[in-house]
């Protein structure tokens, strides 16, 4: 839609370069990962930990000498009070080089006190139909690896398992009956286990599934342990509801 803006004129790279002075990097604003301000709850991303922590906030890094001493009309520095409608706040600046990903500790086991739920946890993603993947085995649970991990600073860590096998109930069938205060322990790879306590057990109708609340990536950190429940609906070949246990870190 902007194609009409294209203008072309003579270009003189050489002249541009001659006119510019190449200064040393002393005043360069290296503000680290501040750019990534849009979603504090997103899973750990490269910049969060691999950018030097000593980086300064952009606005503080403006060297005084870089602003001309006697402009006819004073030039406001970045940190100056906004003086025009287009005035900008401190602007984060970071190196744009590719960075390596940093992964959070992965959950490997789930135990719900007073139930048969004591099983390995494996990372899972999304099926072709857009559903959360669930391990086929009745004695294994899946952790939604694209969302927050247990122990994350924010958002919900989601672990789910099957309620039944083709012929019998699975350990997760006990989920609907857990009481508030029940201890839920999540073992992690390379990190201490985490102890959660159940704060609620709810049924959520599958036809009114609220994915954005179950799979939150911001807000208070919670653990959601999920399986199926409600009624078996032959016509859907599915249960009517999800059983959602919400637990918070002790």
């Amino acid at each position, binding site marked *: 839609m902007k194609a009409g803006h294209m203008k072309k004129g003579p270009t003189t790279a050489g002249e541009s370069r001659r006119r510019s002075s190449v200064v040393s990097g002393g005043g360069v604003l290296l503000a680290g990962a501040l750019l990534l301000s*849009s979603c504090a709850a997103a899973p750990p991303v490269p910049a969060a930990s691999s950018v030097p922590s000593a980086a300064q906030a952009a606005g503080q890094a403006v060297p005084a000498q870089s602003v001309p001493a006697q402009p006819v009309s004073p030039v406001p520095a970045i940190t100056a009070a906004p003086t025009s409608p287009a005035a900008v706040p401190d602007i984060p600046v970071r190196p744009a080089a590719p960075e390596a990903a940093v992964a959070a500790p992965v959950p490997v086991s789930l135990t719900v006190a007073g139930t048969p739920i004591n099983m390995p946890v494996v990372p899972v993603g999304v099926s072709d139909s857009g559903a959360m993947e669930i391990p086929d085995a009745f004695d294994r649970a899946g952790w939604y690896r694209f969302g927050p991990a247990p122990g994350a600073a924010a958002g919900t860590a989601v672990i789910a398992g099957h309620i039944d096998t083709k012929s019998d109930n699975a350990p997760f069938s006990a989920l609907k009956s857990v009481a508030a205060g029940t201890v839920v322990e999540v073992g992690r790879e390379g990190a201490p286990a985490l102890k959660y306590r159940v704060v609620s057990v709810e049924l959520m109708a599958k036809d009114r599934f609220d994915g954005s609340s179950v799979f939150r990536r911001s807000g208070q950190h919670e653990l959601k342990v999920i399986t199926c429940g409600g009624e078996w609906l032959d016509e859907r070949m599915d249960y009517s509801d999800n059983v959602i246990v919400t637990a918070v870190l002790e």
Partner: protein
Amino acid sequence: MRNRIFTAGAGAGAIAAAIALAGPAQAAEGDAQLSVLHGVPGLTVDVWVNGDRTLDDFAPGTLAGPLALPAGAYELAITASDAADASAAVIGPVSVTLAANGNYTAVANLDAAGNPTANLFTNDVSQIEAGKGKLTVRHTAAAPAVDVLAGGAAVVSNLANPNEQTLTLDPGTVSAAVAATGTTAPVIGPADVTIAEGTHTVVYAWGSLADNNLQLAVQTIEGLHSAPGSVPGALDGSTVGAASDPAALTLGIGAAALALLLGGVGVARTVAARRAE
């Protein structure tokens, strides 16, 4: 003479504006988000917005922003880093119009012939389906058309300055290289590029082939994730039901392979193709 080239990026502004809920949260309602990438080697500059010095001593290979700016027209100018004002621009001044809730990256870069110029790209901040990430590659280097290779195979072909292409991918780390179109000898990379789920990763090729300083810059736009549509916790009947597919379990975990979703190549690609000169 000043370079006045100011090419608009993808024409997805209307789409971006319509689905801007997922954009960076620091903005006031309706503000546009403007990031600025410096991709001109060897040239430390100041960036001026409407005559105000906005970025001081902005160095090559750095990314600033996003700035939250009310929708409207802005004049951007890039000067030498010791300029007293914006009058002696080395790039611009150029006028850009930022739509409400739009997300943009202004890039100071070299055109294909090596002359400093600027491009305004519109970033697609639409929601990404659960389990996927988005990758856009932008050619902002003084170099001929290129292919982008992942694992040795071209995933983007014949991309010319200042065009872009967007792919929807499985998350993972991609070993990406850039080669002249039709070849596989890297002129950049290979370098690991992380495609995070729910994140739009924008990779810029910048620098100059002739000066042997081509490199990659990476911008990420987070918070574009979607939630899975359901949690199918029943195994009874699942073998005949369509809702769950246990066979797909965990297979893709950790796989760095690029699974191109041909159907998922979005608006930006179409636009980029249309814009190809």
